């Protein structure tokens, strides 16, 4: 167990909000960039809080909270270049935010009115993937496509592209993730494997998935691995920026283990009191990803107080909009569920749709009578 925790984390901003040096990594943005990251962190957390509340009010079927993982997601999401592509799990609301996917698209999915209907090509952001680990192979294949497009190692700015595959600590036990590591390694594919080790896979601690620190797994596959403080947005940004650059240059894949914590339940249906102690949660609260950025910005006087109140107001406005729009979301017309199975509807499906239509119509006449 000690081994799982002990290896040093790459850290650039302490929980107290102090910048620290690291021999290999540095954050190269200025304080305004940090202020912008802070805004992302706050608004992402607000999306999450609203969604959890909406689920409690019966407006969403379920919600998978990212509470505690904001820095891991914003830090990596903001390291992406426009031409890069990200493949999420079901919890990457912060990355979705960075990719300009409207939170409403996520809320529709969790409400049950659709299954993730953003355009992956418009946002360079794949569909949410619930089958654990499956998307890591999609990411690797996409990266192989980038190679075939000649968009790696050209040195031309804005052309070379990379892919990020998001997954959890539990996912590292999946065959697909290990196959993705193999494929990416032998193909030298421009993909960054970004593991958010939030310490839990529903009720199972990371010790149920591994005997070695997860980032060390990379060595066995033949690419570098690094463990970063996942609650430090600057360190995550720096580490991811470097891994992406490496991939774009043609130096191949790498693994980032963002050491973080799932502050909330696995999803709104979960009860974590059955399997973990609240003192663990309390300890992690001291390492909150937002607090340290706020402390830093205040300390160096990078922004004035109005900056914070403005963001609060913006968050409030966002909350109001999401609540209103979710409540106004109509259920889909059931006849539409027969579309989009294939490019063109098959005669068989057309017949089923017709059968359904006349069945529904007959029920309506029944009611009318």
């Amino acid at each position, binding site marked *: 167990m000690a081994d799982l925790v002990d290896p040093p984390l790459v850290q650039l901003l302490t929980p107290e909000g102090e910048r620290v040096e690291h021999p290999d990594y540095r954050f190269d943005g200025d304080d305004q960039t940090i202020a912008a990251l802070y805004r992302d962190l706050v608004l992402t957390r607000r999306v999450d809080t609203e969604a959890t509340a909406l689920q409690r009010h019966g407006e969403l079927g379920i919600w998978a909270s990212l509470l505690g993982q904001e820095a891991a997601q914003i830090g990596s999401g903001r390291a992406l270049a426009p031409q890069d592509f990200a*493949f999420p799990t079901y919890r990457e609301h912060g990355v979705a935010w960075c990719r300009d996917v409207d939170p409403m698209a996520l809320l529709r999915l969790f409400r049950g009115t659709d299954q993730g209907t953003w355009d992956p*090509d418009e946002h360079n952001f794949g*569909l949410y993937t619930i089958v654990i680990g499956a998307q890591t*192979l999609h990411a*690797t294949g996409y990266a192989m496509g980038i190679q075939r497009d000649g968009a790696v190692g050209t040195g031309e700015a804005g052309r070379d592209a990379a892919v990020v595959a998001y997954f959890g600590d539990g996912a590292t036990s999946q*065959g697909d993730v290990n196959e993705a590591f*193999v494929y990416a390694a032998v193909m030298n594919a421009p993909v960054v494997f970004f593991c958010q080790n939030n310490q839990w896979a529903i009720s199972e601690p990371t010790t149920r998935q591994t005997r070695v620190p997860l980032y060390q797994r990379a060595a066995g596959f033949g690419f570098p691995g690094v463990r970063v403080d996942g609650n430090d947005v600057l360190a995550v940004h720096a580490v991811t920026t470097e891994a992406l650059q490496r991939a774009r240059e043609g130096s191949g894949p790498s693994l980032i283990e963002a050491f973080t914590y799932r502050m909330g339940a696995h999803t709104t249906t979960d009860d974590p009191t059955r399997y973990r102690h609240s003192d663990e949660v309390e300890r992690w609260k001291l390492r909150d990803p937002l607090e340290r950025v706020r402390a830093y910005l205040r300390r160096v006087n990078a922004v004035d107080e109005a900056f914070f109140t403005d963001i609060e107001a913006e968050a409030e406005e966002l909350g109001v909009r999401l609540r209103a729009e979710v409540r106004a979301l109509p259920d889909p017309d059931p006849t539409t569920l027969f579309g989009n199975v*294939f490019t063109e509807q098959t005669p068989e499906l057309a017949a089923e749709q017709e059968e359904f239509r006349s069945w529904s119509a007959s029920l309506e006449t029944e009611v009318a009578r």
Partner: protein
Amino acid sequence: MTATTMSMAKALNAGLRRAMDDDSKVVLMGEDIGRLGGVFRITDGLQKDFGDERVIDTPLAESGILGTAVGLALRGYRPVVEIQFDGFVYPAYDQIVSQVAKYRYRSGGRVGMPIVIRIPFGGGIGAVEHHSESPEAQFAHTPGLKVVACSNPRDTYWMIQQAVASPDPVVFLEPKRLYHSTKAEIDVEATPTPLFSSQVVRPGTSATVLAYGPAVSVAMGAAEAGLADGLDLEVIDLRTLSPLDMGPVHESVRKTGRAVVVHEAHRNLGMGAEIAARISEECFYSLEAPVLRVGGYDTPYPPSRVEEAWLPDLDRVLDAVDRSLAW
């Protein structure tokens, strides 16, 4: 007419070559398909001519093949993957059923998966276990996948090209025991019949025999043998298993009043069950007998020295026809 004589293996090779010539986004993926040309030599010479970026020897992991194919498709490629043998498709089952089949639906029609999954299927080659299976019903049962099976070199040449051109994922079943056994003249300038269509391959009046893949030659053999007993069987090559093209089937059964479905796959919940149900729903008043099924027995595929006893042969087909006629 520009006719060439080809085996089914050659027809696949030529069809794939033409598809790759036509569209630079077509890439082939699979185990041993490069220098070796695949264990059945279907991709012989293609890596030499198209390079290893387009004919990819993959690591030995089937879920990886399909999962990376999904990613390539998302990047605008058209992967044609080879599963080395039918019994090894199961490690990829999750990616096929949960990812390939559903992406279009989940994305609200925005993103398609133009992937062809080639599977050499069926038995009769004296192979060790896991090399002789018929998993088609598992895929035909999955919404979002199209499933076709070829039965002769000429169809194969066209069907593989049509499958590659399909914007939807196609599970492409190749009767491995026929790869090298027969040859046909193929006019490469002909206009092919549509991919998702069934065809009457032998007109007749006594009863309708429905088959696909390797069972088509068994059905044709039965029809030939039946002549001596005064039987004039109509044989339909279904070709497409999902969607089914029931038009020609219903027309035939309305004429003959009797139908026998033949496949190598296990009978329980096999394609025959679905086809029998559809015929009884649509042709009830034309039927003189229940639709009968001839298939593999509901056991795992047996050891090769007894596979001939397990596989449907022309005697079992004719026996079923006799039972239908005697009803």
